[in-house]
C-alpha cells in the first residue's frame, strides 16, 4: 500500500508469458500483454481459445502455472520473497479481488435477493459498510445503470439486459479499479444488447480500466483502445482495433473476422 504513488505509473494489468493448463490441456500459452490505467482492452477469439480462462486468472479464480501476472505491480495469487514465490492464503487472495470487478456471461445474480440486496452484499460483508450507507450507494448505482425503479425486484422478474445491468452495478459497488467483462452480452436477446453496451460505454468514458471479452465488434471498434485476437491459447494479433478489424495480418484472424463481421 506504501507504493501508492509508484503504482500510478505502473500498468493496471501486466501479463508476462502467462501459461495455464487443465491437466494435459494447455489453455493459455505464454500470453503477454499490458493494459494501462484508464484503457479499454477487448479480447476476441473463437470458442475455447482461453479468453475466459485468462480473465479468471486476473482475479485469481484460476491459478497461473507459469509466467508472471501482475495487477498494479502486485503479483496475482502469489507473494514474492527473494526469488521464491509463496502462494497467497485464501484471505489474501480475496483481498486482491476487492479492487477487481467481474461481470459474467450468465449474470450470476443471487436469485434469492432483490436487485438492491444483490448490490449491498459485498460492501457490507467485505468492506463492513453499514446497511444504510450501502443501500444508498446501491440506489445511486442502479440509477446510474438506468434501473432506479427496479431496486426491489428479484432477478427472476427482470429481463436479461436489466439483470446484466444490475450485475454491473453489483461489481461497481466495490469501487473497483479494474472491470473484467466475460461476454457480457452473449446471453442476451439482440434487442437487449444495446442497453448493456451503453452502460459499458458510459463506464469506459468515465475512465474505468476495462478488459472485455466480446463478440461485439462494433463496440470494440468504438470503445476499445486496443484489441487482442486469441486463438488456441496464444495472442495471435494485438493492436489498435481499427487496424486489426480493418486490416488483419494473420490468416487465423482473417478467418475468424470473416465469420463474425
Amino acid at each position, binding site marked *: 500500500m506504501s507504493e501508492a504513488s509508484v503504482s500510478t505509473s505502473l500498468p493496471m494489468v501486466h501479463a508476462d508469458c502467462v501459461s495455464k493448463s487443465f491437466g494435459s490441456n494447455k489453455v493459455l500459452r505464454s500470453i503477454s500483454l499490458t493494459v494501462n490505467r484508464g484503457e479499454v482492452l477487448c479480447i476476441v477469439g473463437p470458442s475455447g481459445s482461453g479468453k475466459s480462462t485468462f480473465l479468471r486468472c486476473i482475479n485469481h479464480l484460476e491459478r497461473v502455472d507459469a509466467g508472471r501476472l501482475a495487477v498494479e505491480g502486485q503479483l496475482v495469487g502469489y507473494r514474492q520473497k527473494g526469488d521464491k514465490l509463496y502462494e497467497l492464503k485464501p484471505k489474501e487472495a*480475496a483481498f486482491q*479481488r*476487492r479492487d477487481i470487478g467481474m461481470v459474467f456471461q450468465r449474470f450470476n445474480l443471487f436469485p*434469492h435477493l432483490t436487485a438492491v440486496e444483490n448490490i449491498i452484499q459485498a460492501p457490507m460483508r467485505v468492506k463492513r459498510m453499514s446497511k444504510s450507507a450501502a443501500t444508498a450507494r446501491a440506489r445511486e448505482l442502479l440509477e446510474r445503470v438506468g434501473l432506479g425503479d427496479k431496486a426491489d425486484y*428479484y*432477478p*427472476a422478474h427482470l429481463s436479461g439486459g436489466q439483470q446484466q445491468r444490475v450485475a454491473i452495478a453489483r461489481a461497481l459497488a466495490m469501487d473497483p479499479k479494474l472491470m473484467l467483462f466475460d461476454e457480457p452480452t452473449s446471453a442476451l436477446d439482440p434487442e437487449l444488447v444495446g442497453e448493456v453496451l451503453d452502460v459499458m460505454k458510459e463506464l469506459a468514458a468515465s475512465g474505468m480500466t476495462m478488459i472485455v471479452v466480446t463478440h461485439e465488434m462494433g463496440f470494440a471498434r468504438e470503445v476499445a483502445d486496443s484489441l487482442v485476437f486469441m486463438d488456441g491459447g496464444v495472442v495471435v494479433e494485438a493492436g489498435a482495433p481499427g487496424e486489426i478489424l480493418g486490416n488483419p495480418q494473420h490468416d487465423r484472424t482473417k478467418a475468424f473476422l470473416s465469420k463474425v463481421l
Partner: protein
Amino acid sequence: MSTPAEHHQSAPQIAQGTEHAQGAAIKAIPLRHPWRVIIAVVLVAFIAIFVADASQRADYGWADVGKYIFDKRISQAALITLELTVYSMVIAIVLGLLLAIMRLSPNPVVKGIAWLYLWLFRGTPVYVQLVFWGIVSLIYPVLTIGIPFGTPWVSIPNDVFHNLFVTAIIGLALNEAAYMSEIVRAGLLSVDEGQEEASRALAMSWGQTMRYVVVPQAMKIIIPPTGNEVISMLKTTSLVAAIPLSIDLYGVSRGISAVTFTPVPLLIVASLWYLLFTSVLMVGQHFIEKRFSRGTGRRKADKEPDGGGGTTTAVAGTPLGAPTLGGQLTGTDFGGKR
C-alpha cells in the same frame, strides 16, 4: 380485447353462458369422469361401513379412548416424544450439515470419514443402533484418555448413557445425521457454480459465500425433505423402547394397556396424538417452504421480511389431518421407518 367490464362479471357463468361475439367465455360441455365418481362412491361407502362397524365393536373401547386421550400421563408422554423429536433433529441437522460439508471437502481423509459414517449409520437398522446405545455403558464402563494399552492419564465413568433419555436422543440423532447429511449435500450441490464464482469475484470469503449465497439457496432444496424427516423422526421415537426407554408416548400407552388389558384403545389414543403432531408439522412445513422459495416465483410475491410469523400463528386457520397421513398407524416395536 375490447371486452367491457360486464364480461368479467359474467365470467363465472361459463356453464350457462350467453352467446357473445368476441371475447365471450367458452361454452362447452365439460369432460365427464364417470369412473372417478363411481370409485369415490365405492370408497366412501367402504369407509362408512368400516366406521359404522368400528363404532360398535367392543375391542375398540371408544369409552376408554375418551377416558385416556387427555390423561395426564399420556399428555406428558406426548411432550417427551416431542422433546425427543426436537432435540434429536436439531443435533442431526447440525451434524448432517457438518458431514455434508466434509463430504464436499477436497481432503480425501475428511471425505472418507464422512463416507464411513454414512455407510455405518445408514447401513444398520435404527432399532439395532438404539439397542447398542442402550448397552454401550456396559461395554465401555469408563472413558479413558492416555496412551493406548498403557496406564490411562484420565478416566471418567461413562455416565452419559445411564441417562436413558439422553441416550435415546444420541441414538436417534446419530442415525438421523446420516440421512440429513445426504439431504444437505444434495441441497448444496444444487446451487449453480456461477453463484459461488460471483461471490468469490466480489471478494467474499468461503464462509461468507456459504452463509449468504449458497446455503440460503440450498434451503429451498433442503427444507421439504427435512420436513419429512422431522415427521418421520416423530414416529421413529416410538422405537426408543429398544434402549429401553418407556416414558415416550407409545411407551406410556403400552404401559397403561399392560395394566388395563385394553391394548386397542390405547393404540388409538397414541395414534391420535401422533396424528395431531404430524398434522401441525405439515402445516408448519408449508409455511417454511413458502418463506424459502423467495425470488423464484413468477409473481413479485411475498417480499415482506418474515412472511407473517411462521408456524405458530399459521396453525389455527388451516385444515388439519390431510389424507396422506391415513394408514400410518404407529405402534409396534418394529413399525418405524427403517
